[in-house]
Each structure stands twice: as C-alpha cells, then as structure tokens.
C-alpha cells in the first residue's frame, strides 16, 4: 500500500533524474561524435574517462572549479557572518536593512554578470577607469586579458550576489541563540570577543555548515557567471568543469566524451554533498549533546 502510494513520485523521480543520469553514464562508455557518423558509436569502455585523466584542459578545469569554490565560499562565509551580525544588531530600520541586504540575491545571475562585466570593462568600466586615473593600473590594463586578474570579476560577482544568502541563513542561526547565555557571560566578565568565540561561533556552527554546503554545491556547478564574464578565457584560464563539459557536448558535439565529463561533474558534486551531509549530521549531534 505504502509503495503503491509512493509509486507516482518514485516514477517521476526516476523519469526526470535517474533515467537521464543512467543514460548519460551509458553514453559516456561509448565513442560517439555527432559530427563523425562514419565512426559509428562503438562501445569504448572507460576510454573516455582515461582520456579525461590525461587531458590537461580537463585537469585545469578541475583545479579552476575547486579553487573558485574554496576562495569564493570562504569570502562569502566571512562577509556573510559580518552581515548577519550587523543585521542582528540593528535595532532601528531592521526590516529595511534586511530587505536592502537581500537585493543582490534577487537579481538574475546573468543580469548581474552583465553589470559586473560593464564595471570591469577596460574602456568604459567604472572600476578600471578609476584605477587608471589613480595610477594604480597602466593605460592598457584589461582584467579579462590576464589569466589571474580575470578571476577577480568572477569571484567579485559571485561574492556580491550570494553573500546576502549566506547572511540570511546565518541570521536565522543567530536568532536561535538564547540571549540569556550572553547576559550570563557578561556578568561573568567575558568581553565581546570572548563571547563571540565561545558562545556565538560554536552555537552557529550548524548554520555555518548548512550555508557552506549550499554555497559549495552551487560554486562547484559554476557556469553562468564565467560564460557571461570571461567566456572561460583568456585562453582557458577561467574555464570551470561545467563549461568544458558544455563546450565538448554542445560545440564540439562529442557526445561520448562530453557525457563522461558531465558524469565527472555530477560525481564531484555528489561526493561533496555526501561529505557535507555527514558533517552536518555530526554538527547537529554535537549541538544536541
């Protein structure tokens, strides 16, 4: 009876999630290039995955993806925590403050990316022209032409857009902390830093883990920001995994190899999700104790 009632839901999940993933995994085991029909579609075993392991562009893409996730999520957690503390402390105009802080989160990523592209533009961009006038950068400096500098707009746009989201999650965590704890600590003579380190931070840990989990999973799937801001360039210096998979599948039309890359993105995200869920469970268990 229970299974019967669950069947429609299970069927839908199978149709929209499991079947496509299984089909992609199956495709990844074949040599299949849409533009070379004369090669057919022979079964190739793990050849596509072996090719990926030796593909320098793929390895660079993995490094780009993981590096971006680490840097941007770290920045977002620090800034988000500061934002949450400010929102928590604000007494007057609290509602207005919170709404204003959330604005970036409500803007579609592609629109935000276009605006950031404009800010960093070498000819007319506000930031670049101000830096040039201040003599900090040379006249021919262009963010999008330098392999490392090109990451700055990407990380800046991501941090700007998602810090409010992290801030909101952490604010919810802050509000569950009993103010009596702080009062008691204050009576015992603990200063603000001590109270932050021994009361706020440990009690906020579950919220931090949740925020970090959401943001890391998002950051590992980085695509739209890079697509609009740098196109993966200069060269392939800012190309993340999902963009390399996209190029392989949709531009090169190498369905076999592209599927193998997609499966790798999927596995990477999946493993991170598992690890984080474990960490989350542990954090919650500790809190209960």
């Amino acid at each position: 009876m229970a299974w019967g009632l669950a069947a429609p839901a299970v069927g839908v999940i199978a149709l929209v999630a499991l079947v496509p993933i299984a089909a992609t995994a199956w495709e990844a085991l074949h040599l299949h290039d849409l533009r070379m029909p004369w090669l057919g579609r022979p079964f190739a075993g793990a050849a596509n995955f072996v090719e990926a392991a030796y593909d320098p562009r793929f390895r660079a893409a993995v490094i780009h993806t993981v590096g971006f996730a680490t840097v941007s999520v770290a920045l977002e957690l620090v800034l988000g925590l500061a934002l949450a503390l400010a929102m928590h402390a604000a007494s007057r105009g609290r509602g207005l403050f919170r709404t204003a802080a959330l604005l970036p989160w409500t803007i579609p990523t592609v629109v935000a990316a276009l605006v950031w592209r404009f800010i960093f533009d070498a000819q007319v961009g506000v930031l670049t022209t101000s830096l040039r006038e201040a003599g900090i950068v040379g006249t021919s400096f262009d963010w999008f032409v330098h392999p490392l500098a090109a990451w700055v707009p990407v990380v800046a746009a991501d941090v700007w857009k998602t810090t409010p989201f992290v801030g909101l999650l952490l604010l919810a965590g802050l509000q569950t902390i009993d103010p009596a704890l702080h009062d008691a600590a204050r009576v015992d003579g603990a200063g603000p830093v001590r109270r932050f380190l021994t009361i706020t931070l440990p009690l906020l840990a579950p919220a931090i883990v949740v925020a970090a989990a959401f943001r890391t999973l998002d950051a590992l799937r980085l695509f739209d920001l890079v697509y609009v801001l740098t196109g993966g360039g200069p060269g392939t210096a800012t190309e993340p995994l999902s963009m390399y998979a996209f190029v392989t599948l949709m531009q090169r039309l190498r369905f076999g190899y592209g599927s193998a890359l997609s499966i790798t993105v999927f596995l990477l995200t999946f493993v991170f999700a598992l690890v984080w869920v474990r960490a989350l469970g542990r954090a919650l268990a500790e809190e209960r104790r």
Partner: protein
Amino acid sequence: MHRASRDVEPYREERIEPDYIRAGGSDRNAHHLTGATSLADTAVPGIIGAAMPMRTGVLVLLCLSAAAACAPSSRPGPLTFSGSAVGAEADVVRRQLARFGERYPGVRVELRVTPDAADQRRQLYVQWLNARTEEPDVLQLDVIWTAEFAAAGWILPLDAAVPDAGDFVPAALTAARWRGTLYAVPWFIDVGLLYRRTDLVPEAPRSLSGLRDAARRAVETGAAPFGLVWQGARYEGLVTVFLEHLGAFGGGILDEDGRVIVDAAPAVSALTFMRDALAPAGFAPPSVLTWQEEQARFAFQNGDAVFMRNWPYAWGLLADASRSRVAGRFAVAPFPAADGGRPTAALGGAQLAVNAHTADPALARELVAFLTAPEQMLERARLAAQLPARQSLYDSDALAGALPLPLDQIGAAIAAAQTRPVTPVYSELSEILQVRLHRALTGQQEPAAALRDAAAEMRALLARAGLTGEGTAP
C-alpha cells in the same frame, strides 16, 4: 556570419521529431532512438544554461509518450528552406522564394527560421541531419561547414545542378567542394578587409611593416589612441585574423594534402607579429583580445583607431554620417603581405546545400540553382548589401551602384580571398587553434610553444577522425 549574435529566433521544434518516433526494429531506427536519448542526456546537472538541448530533450520525451501527435506529415508538402531571416535578408529571401513558387506552379516554399548565430544554427543542423530528417530540404551553410556535412553524408552532390561552376569566386568554390565534388553552391561571400583612415594614412600600406610603421607613428603622434584594431576574442573571428597574418607571412594551417603545418616558421612569425603588436610599445590595444567585430567597429567609428580589420558589413555603418565620426574619411584594401607572403583576405559567407534525405532532390536542386542565379544575387546585393559569389558580376558593370562599397577596393580583396582549411573537422580544429592563439596572445605561452601544442592536438584530432595524411576519407 561573424556578426554579434542578434536575437535568436525560436526554431521550429516540430521539425526535429519525425525520425525519432518512427520506432521499429531496424538498425536505422535503433540508431535514431539512441540519438534521442543522447539529446535527453544533455539535460544532466552541470550543463546549466544549455537551454536548447534541454528543450529538445523534453520535446523528444513528449513525442515518445504521444507518438501519434508527432507523426510526420505526409509528402508532398511544401519545399522547406532554412537560413538567415533577419532584417533585410528576410525580405530578400521571402521575395525570392515566392518568385520560385510562381515559376513552378503548385510548388510552395516555406522558410524555416533558424538561429542567426552561426554556432547555434550549426548545432541544430547537426542534430537534425544526424536524425535524418527530410526537412529542411535546402540549407544555408557557413563556408566552413560544407566539408563537415559532405563527409558525413548529410548533403547531396550538386555538380549536375550547377553547369557554370567556373563562374564562382575561386576561393568560394574551393570551400564548396569536398574531394573534388561540389556539395554546395556559393550564395554570397564575405572577405576580411583592412579599413584605414584616409585623412591619416592616404595610401594603403604596401607591406605589413608599412602597416606597422604607419600605425605606430599615428599612436606616437597622438593622431589616434590605437593604431590597429582587430577581432581577438577567443572565437572564430580570431582564426580569420590569424589566417590573414599567416597568409601575409606565407604560411598556412593545413597544406594541400591535409597535413598540419601550423607549427612551421611562417606561422610562428605571424603569431609573434600579432603578439608584439599588443606589447606596451606596440600599436594595438590589449583589449582587442576581448573584442569581436562590433567592438572593433565602435573604436574605428569613434575615430579611436587608424586601421581596423573587419568585414564588408561595417562599410555601410561607418559611412553613416549621423552616427559615424569617420564618414567619408576611410577606405578599404586587402590585409598587406610581409616578405615571402601574399596579401590575404579570409573568406566568409554562405553556401546553399541540399539535405541528403530530402523527399524531392530534383526540386531542391532547382531551388539552389534559382537562388544562386545572377539575378537573385544582384537583388541580394542591392537590398541586403551582401557580396555576390559570382566573379562575372564584378567583371561586368552589373553591380555598379548596387553595393555601398567601391567595387575596385572590394575587387582587390576578393582576389586575395583565402579559405579556411577545408576539412570535416574544421570546427574542432578551429577551437584548438582559438585556445592556443589566445594563450599566446595573452602571454600565457610563447608563440612557438603554443603553435607546437596546437599542431600536436590537431594531428591527434585528425588521427582520431581517420583523416590523417593524404586521401583523407571516411
């Protein structure tokens, strides 16, 4: 063709499904079903933003579940034509298709609107033709796709349909042939041009060093902030710019036998020249490495550049005095040569081909012959300012007054026209080159090393495709 992509027209989804749903036991149908799954596959996590395949995938699922609703319409239906249908081009093509219908009573030709962005149209074509759909019967191909489609068996030979093939611009004809057989008919052409400010540089530079000196002098005297601007973003346009520098030094990407020669000395000189132009003491702004056609045009149009490499479309816009600061003060010439090379103009443009699975090959060939006849080309030149692909039209006075560009200046560029490599794997070859060129130009690799890596990757690609060496064939 390389213009900034305009709004993408929604493509006709009902054209995709007929073959997927003809489920049966044969190998052919089994292949189609695999094709359908692989389209659905692309809707996996990680391919965010790939709206097109997801839509296709959903569509396929819908069709699989409601096969009856998607049954292929029975022939004889209208003949279908797929190509650009934006602005003036749309008017011209609609007018000509209607005229074809009048000439053949009972025949109706429908326009299937496809995305105007070249990459997207190609992806769509590849998916359709892989599924062996009967429509569209006639396809507008970019000059660089013909070999790919011909080798895959997706388009029909057209030798019999074009008795006067010798009339076409030779470079365009080269791009339309695969293994000696004509698979497409040149429709209109595009050639890379060197625009220059006639008030600053009255005479076209005779050599590449002359161009460099004039550009550098203009920057040093403050006549304009930039000496030369071109298309340096990592996309197809960069390859055409490189091809012109390459020709100037006497190099090439593939030799006549299809062997990779892009790591030879002339190519290294060409890429080094391009990189040095971007150096602090150079004459081109490093920002060109993020520019496509339109950004270069804006810079030139605002009077910020002495020279610009661009396509003929820019002429009409630059000549418009209400928007352009350089109206009446510019001219064009082919990109000049260095020692040991020749002036080179990258060839672009469109060709017409016939779907190999069309229901009516004879009529489809008739349509191709009609659209590429001199009268239709002249009308297209007059109304859409696109250059005819027939050499004789330039040699006679038929074109006088039809085009905004001066015929003598454009004629020199057409004589210098050079195709990009004619190979079934051109798209991927180009992508390899784009990445390596961009790495070298942004200082991540030395030109020689970048080209060595590019050549190695290209050789591996040709080997994988079974196209190594002479007699390249599937």
